């Protein structure tokens, strides 16, 4: 009758233990004066409970159980021929993180380092930096990768963390589907449908680094087919510390306002419309360069950023094998700082169609068109030629998913064709195979070619990096001497050939593992070539000065390889353990003419380890620990570190959640990274704690 009695018996054993603990919890709750009416389901993890346990619940409690995702998503994940990792809402909530950037530390194969209180360096499989340019990031399908410098400004990628449904991370090239710049990975931040966020939510808290934060959200249904929500979020974060122990003057605050509506006019159509607005004030401290005395002086300034965006998406289902999606968005982002101000408007159109033209083939094809236009305001340190520019990006892709053996072997062939104004036509093909001998095992392998197209800065920017005063060694002339990056019209795309294999295994009902190995071969990577032979005298701006020209060129080649492992183990129903380990080796070499081998690109740890533990305790308490260990970054002189976050959560009743979080509790402070362009002071991440209350109504 029951096929696998051993496993069933084990589950029943654990569920009994769970029920005993739960009964103790119930008893204590009844004894306490504030006994709430219904509190059974609370923290229980429905996914891992057997039907026998569920019969112990009342109908009212059964009605509260969410029945979708968990299994469906892991199903989907096991069926992907790529190194995919999903951060769920529960992972975010229980980790105690206060930003999307910090949540990404869970993902094996990603390098996440905090530069200062308001800046992060995040990359996938190496090449990390504030302007890490090989990782594409999308929020509900809207690209937040800035084409100006390439890279992502993580500070302004904010939304109430409670409204995030999940963050899907794919390491390795995703270019065949997502396009250029998805070279080493794609991060897709997906927010909840308005159908799933009905009711109110207020959360607020404060702590040592978090001077104060608050979120408000309210959602409701308009009729049976349409729902909406609107939200506001604000936080104010304290400055971090310099190595000397002095304050780093990098405190910041940001508010975000937004709404989302979801409408299902028919059973086959779903329409989503959303909008966001944010405004941030961030302090930073850096050395401004000038041609007159004192030539270099410290500036402490407020960086002001703000933006607004709207996104519309329409999905029509034709059958379970066929659908179509149309997406339009508009995004305006402004940044205002002493060295550079920029206003950027992006209009984007995307269309996708999935259908099955022949048996065993599932074809997806799509068209994309993007117009992005900027307007910059220069300073002596950074200027753009031309000052403002409008670029078009036209792309089309096609992908065929072929079932070779039903439920066992699948082959995916895909390619993206793209035309951009910097490097012209780009071709990015890939081939993937997935073999699932049974439900417990899946093995995949892939080969892809992908490109990182030139950024506006590489192509058009003049950067006056630093000024050596007259008669100051090594400058023996009587003029100030400037090291300058001269725009390079010939800057080309960087090219990657990637080989990947992966294996996922459900070892038992309570243990699942995922291992990926990759080998990446890069050509034409960015290099900085300083041409000492061509020093020239420049008369403007006044006073006359010598220029040592440098240019960004494509003279670095190299390869990287690595292994990423993650696992999930539920020793008992109320305890989850999630270890992750990454190994990364980078080997880059410049051309024989002595160009710099891009030191900052290799500022990544060789070994990284993370261990998360989540316990559901009696009395609806939760206890979480997160241990992280990161290897040295020798090229920027940063030592490895090992630290831990801890969270204690309590749901005194169905509507209220209290939590106390400690972060980086192993040491007073430690550095994690060094900014690579503006030469900002190196700041350190401090031990901190905060308290938070969440009220749902």
């Amino acid at each position: 009758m029951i096929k696998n009695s051993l496993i069933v018996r084990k589950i029943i054993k654990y569920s009994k233990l769970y029920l005993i603990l739960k009964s103790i919890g119930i008893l204590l709750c009844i004894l306490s004066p504030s006994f709430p009416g219904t509190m059974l389901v609370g923290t229980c993890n429905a996914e891992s409970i057997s039907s026998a346990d569920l019969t112990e619940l009342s109908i009212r409690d059964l009605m509260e159980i969410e029945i979708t995702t968990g299994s469906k998503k892991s199903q989907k994940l096991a069926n992907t021929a790529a190194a995919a990792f999903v951060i769920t809402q529960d992972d975010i909530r229980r980790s105690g993180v206060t930003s999307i950037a910090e949540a990404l530390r869970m993902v094996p194969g990603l390098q996440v380092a905090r530069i200062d209180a308001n800046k992060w360096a995040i990359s996938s499989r190496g090449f990390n930096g504030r302007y890490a340019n090989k990782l594409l990031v999308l929020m509900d399908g809207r690209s937040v990768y800035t084409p100006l410098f390439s890279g992502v400004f993580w500070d302004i990628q904010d939304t109430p963390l409670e409204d995030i449904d999940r963050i899907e991370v794919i390491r390795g090239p995703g270019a065949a589907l997502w396009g250029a710049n998805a070279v080493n990975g794609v991060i897709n931040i997906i927010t909840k449908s308005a159908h799933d966020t009905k009711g109110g939510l207020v959360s607020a808290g404060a702590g040592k680094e978090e001077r104060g934060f608050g979120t408000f959200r309210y959602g409701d249904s308009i009729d049976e087919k349409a729902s909406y929500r609107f939200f506001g979020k604000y936080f104010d974060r304290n400055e971090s510390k310099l190595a000397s122990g002095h304050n780093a003057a990098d405190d910041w605050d940001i508010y975000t306002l937004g709404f989302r509506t979801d409408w299902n006019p028919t059973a086959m159509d779903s329409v989503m419309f959303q909008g966001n607005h944010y405004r941030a004030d961030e302090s930073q401290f850096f050395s401004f360069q000038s041609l007159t005395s004192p030539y270099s002086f410290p500036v402490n300034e407020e960086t002001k950023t703000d933006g607004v965006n709207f996104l519309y998406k329409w999905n029509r289902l034709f059958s379970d094998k066929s659908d179509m999606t149309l997406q339009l968005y508009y995004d305006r982002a402004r940044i205002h700082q002493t060295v550079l101000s920029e206003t950027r408007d992006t209009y984007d159109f995307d269309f996708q169609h999935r259908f099955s033209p022949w048996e065993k083939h599932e074809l997806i094809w799509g068209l994309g068109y993007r117009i992005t236009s900027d307007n910059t305001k220069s300073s002596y340190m950074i200027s753009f030629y031309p000052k403002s520019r409008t670029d078009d990006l036209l792309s089309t892709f096609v992908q065929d998913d072929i079932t070779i053996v039903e439920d066992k072997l699948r082959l995916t062939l895909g390619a993206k064709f793209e035309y951009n104004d910097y490097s012209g036509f780009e071709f990015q093909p890939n081939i993937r195979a997935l073999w699932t001998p049974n439900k417990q095992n899946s093995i995949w392998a892939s080969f892809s070619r992908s490109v990182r197209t030139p950024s506006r800065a590489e192509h058009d920017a003049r950067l006056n990096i630093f000024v050596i005063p007259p008669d100051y060694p090594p400058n023996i002339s009587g003029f100030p001497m400037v090291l300058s990056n001269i725009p390079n019209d010939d800057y080309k795309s960087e090219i990657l050939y990637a080989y990947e294999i992966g294996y996922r295994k459900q070892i038992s009902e309570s243990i699942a593992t995922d291992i990926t190995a990759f080998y990446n071969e890069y050509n034409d990577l960015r290099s900085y070539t300083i041409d000492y032979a061509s020093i020239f005298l420049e008369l403007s701006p006044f006073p006359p000065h010598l220029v040592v020209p440098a240019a960004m060129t494509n003279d670095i080649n190299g390869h990287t390889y690595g292994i990423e492992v993650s696992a999930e183990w539920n020793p008992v129903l109320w305890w989850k353990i999630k270890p992750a380990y990454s190994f990364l080796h980078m080997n880059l070499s410049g051309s024989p003419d002595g160009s710099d081998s891009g030191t900052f690109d290799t500022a990544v740890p060789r070994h990284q380890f993370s261990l998360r533990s989540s316990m559901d305790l009696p009395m609806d308490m939760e206890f979480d620990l997160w241990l992280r260990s990161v290897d040295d970054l020798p090229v920027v002189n940063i030592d490895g570190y090992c630290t831990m976050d801890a969270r204690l959560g309590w749901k005194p009743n169905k509507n209220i959640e209290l939590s106390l979080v400690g972060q980086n509790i192993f040491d007073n402070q430690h550095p994690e990274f060094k900014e690579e362009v503006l030469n900002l002071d190196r700041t350190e991440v401090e031990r901190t704690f905060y308290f938070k209350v969440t009220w749902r109504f």
Partner: protein
Amino acid sequence: MAHHIIKYILRIILLAIVFLSIPISYIYASESLTMESKVKAAFIYNFAKFVDWPLAVSNDTQSQPFIIGVIGYNPLIEDLMSIEGKTIKGRKLIVRQLSNIREMNNCQVVYISASEKDNLTGILNAAKSNNILTVSDMGNFVENGGIIGFVKVENKIRFDINLKTAGESHLKIRSDLLALARRIIN
């Protein structure tokens, strides 16, 4: 040179994974049961507690088992079977896969798979005359004369009740259960 060594190592890893995975995979062949049918099974078990069958029927059969039947193929049966042996109204629970309408006679509750939509009228008529509580998740079940119909609303399970059919089947549904129904048809 280094490239070749690494490619070679990757190849060995791939081969090792392929060979290691084959024997292990035979050990765990259990099918994972989905959450949705687990929850529905628990609902059905709970419904029985809030429904009173006609006195004549229940008195006669106090020593008999309480039988839940499933018509048509549905994965839910596995979840119902895992709770076999529990008691409902002092009677031992038994779950049966039914292959035709005649086998419904001894059942107190019958779950009708969506696959039986075409035979619904016949099944419901037989159920009515045997005082059977009918449950299903097929569309428009209660509108077509079923007693309790599951509906999924935003990833959670809700249910509708047809009080008229319940009355005609001489089943009394307690107000506690009615209060939780999404919709009641009179």
